[in-house]
């Protein structure tokens, strides 16, 4: 896989445990939103309503278009502090 054409997808906390994995590598073959990325990688699971998504360490909405080289992350509401 050419890293430049791929994206890294990370999962955290309860989502990571539910999916049983913490990271996916994925090669973009067409223009995709984060919503498309989720559907491609987790077709069996409708994303929980509260699920958050970040691209390159910033929060984005589900219609955000990803680019090759991006780091995408899905995670439940944060509970720190």
């Amino acid at each position, binding site marked *: 896989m050419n890293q430049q054409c791929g994206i890294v997808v990370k999962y*955290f906390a309860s989502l990571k445990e539910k999916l049983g994995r913490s990271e996916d590598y994925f090669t973009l073959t067409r223009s995709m939103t984060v919503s498309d990325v989720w559907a491609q990688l987790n077709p069996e699971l409708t994303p929980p309503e509260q699920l958050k998504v970040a691209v390159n360490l910033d929060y984005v909405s589900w219609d955000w278009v990803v680019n090759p080289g991006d780091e995408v992350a899905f995670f439940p509401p944060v509970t720190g502090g």
Partner: protein
Amino acid sequence: MITIVQETFNPWDALQTYQQQMELRVLRTLGATNVFVGSMRDFNQEVQVERMVLEYYPGMTEKQLGMITAQANEQWSLIDSLIIHRVGEVFPTDVLVLVAVWSAHRADAFEACRFLMEALKSQAPFWKKECVAGQQARWVAENTVGYKHY
């Protein structure tokens, strides 16, 4: 300064140390300091929590804390701020978070400190998993809103 720590820390020692490193010309301008310390209670929603595990998103957590600190500096007149957040395995009475804000006047310190705590709790990627006596470990679902009285 923003720090994520893996080990138990004492908030008052941390503040002492941090303030000792400030220059005298800065210390002489400080009129107000507001500090929030969040620590682990042994009860949450009626069940006894024996320990917790705090997960975070290395990189994003620091970036988000940096952004909220920048927002606080835009909105209030601040001299310095300090955020220390614990990750990993924690036990009752352990400190989870320290937020400190230094300013010339008290309104800025009070308001910026509270803003930082609320922003941290809603934006910074940390997740708590509680280990409850006699039950399976469970992830905390969502933080409460802190401005309940306003």
